[in-house]
């Protein structure tokens, strides 16, 4: 893998740090007029999501991480692994529970997700920004209530719990913003 000088550090660059793949969030170049230059870098560890700060001597180089994002279709869960397929090459990937993590509650078969690969194996999975899921369980609401105020919890077919307006019924499809976990609208079939 290529090496990168601190002079090339910028947001989004993927590097290997303490053997873990990381993404640079921010790089600040520090140099006293007559002194040593440093790079003060904010880095996200892509394995555990933690953000750390590190300082490098300017001009130092670090190994790049072979990390890339691909679009994949979610196929099924076999009890241990979640299986995805790259729709053009038909390459299949199996992600373990670490990679899927809490995204599992948004996964619906055939939806297109973004998978981050490190050395060709799944590191993490991001759901689409919007998903459409069927309501599996919720208290019966008041018919005719369209105000949307208040609301009630509803459990989706995938297991996610979302606050929905009172008029939403079991079996209905709703659209959810996965970034906020909030109900957006009902989906007309």
């Amino acid at each position, binding site marked *: 893998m290529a090496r990168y000088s601190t*002079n090339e550090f910028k947001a989004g660059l993927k590097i290997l740090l303490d053997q873990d793949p990381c993404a640079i969030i921010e790089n600040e170049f520090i140099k006293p007029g007559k*002194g040593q*230059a440093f790079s003060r870098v904010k880095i996200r560890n892509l394995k555990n999501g933690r953000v750390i700060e*590190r300082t490098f001597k300017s001009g130092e180089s670090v190994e790049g991480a072979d990390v890339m994002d691909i679009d994949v279709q979610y196929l099924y869960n076999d009890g241990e692994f979640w299986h995805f397929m790259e729709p053009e090459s038909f390459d299949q990937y199996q992600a373990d529970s670490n990679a899927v993590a809490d995204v599992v509650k948004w996964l619906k078969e055939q939806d297109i997700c973004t998978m981050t690969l490190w050395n060709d194996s799944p590191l993490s999975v991001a759901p689409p920004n919007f998903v459409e899921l069927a309501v599996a369980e919720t208290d019966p609401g008041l018919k005719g209530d369209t105000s949307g105020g208040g609301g009630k919890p509803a459990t989706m077919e995938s297991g996610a719990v979302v606050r929905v307006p009172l008029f939403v019924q079991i079996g209905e499809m709703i659209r959810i913003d996965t970034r906020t976990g909030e109900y957006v609208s009902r989906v007309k079939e």
Partner: protein
Amino acid sequence: MAENWKPACDLNALRSRAQMLATIRHFFQQRSVLEVETPLLCSATGTDPQLDFFSSIYHAAPNNKEMFLQTSPEFAMKRLLSAGSGSIFQICKAFRNSELGRFHNPEFSILEWYRIDFSLDQLMDEVAELIVELLGNQFYQVDKQSYSKVFKRHTGLNPLVFCQKTYADYALNNDIKDAVSLCGNDHAMWLDFIFSYKVQPALEDKALCMVYGYPAIQSSLARININNPLVSDRFEVFIKGIEIGNGFFELSDAVEQEHRFDQENKSRQRKGIRRVDKDKKFLDALHSGLPDCSGVALGLDRLLMGITQAYSLDDVIAFPFDRA
């Protein structure tokens, strides 16, 4: 169509820059300081291992000649001073390779001036007068502090006496543990690290602050203080914690200067970076006699940031590096 043909900064910043330059020229005219020009493309460059330069080739095959873009006009201006120019100032571009960030652009504007027979303190006062005039008519408290005092106040450490263990303990307890492995037993690097991370941010609430009496190991081209050999006659200017410039009571001893060049070349060798030929013309000028003077260089782009309260150099430079 890509958008980066356009200036990065607001057009108002161009007007502020023109105003700043006019004010500076007026300031020196009133004081009878002569404006001069020296080459940007030079046959020699500084040996400072912390300064990375751009070089280019003058085509005269088979005797091609390497030329350097100046990292500062210091050597050429001191040649003028040695030739009897009297007090001089210059507004020009300087170039420093691989320096890029919110406060750095590889090509930048410098205001550099030298005052014959000025003490460092007199020059600091003049710097303050100029900056106060540029920042506007408000009343500014000009804060002068010694490096030792300000360093000790904000860290508890003595910057003049190096104790690796004390410094490392401080780093571990103050959230800068990377310093321990990066700086090792390099006193100057420790000072740069700690000053940048812990002292400079503490100067942010000061409109204008001058720190003088830098440790002798960071003397650069300043004289060593005659009363305290651990301290050099060097100051730095900060506007809201941002380093704006560097001033010296200028070293005029040609032998000492040549010795520092040799030391810096040795340090270059240790770091595995190329050696640089000493600037013979500059050394000859010192041999012929540089009058006692104090000099200072201010980064004009950063100064303009201070005047316009900008966040980044991109807000005050029309075409910064990525649009150049």
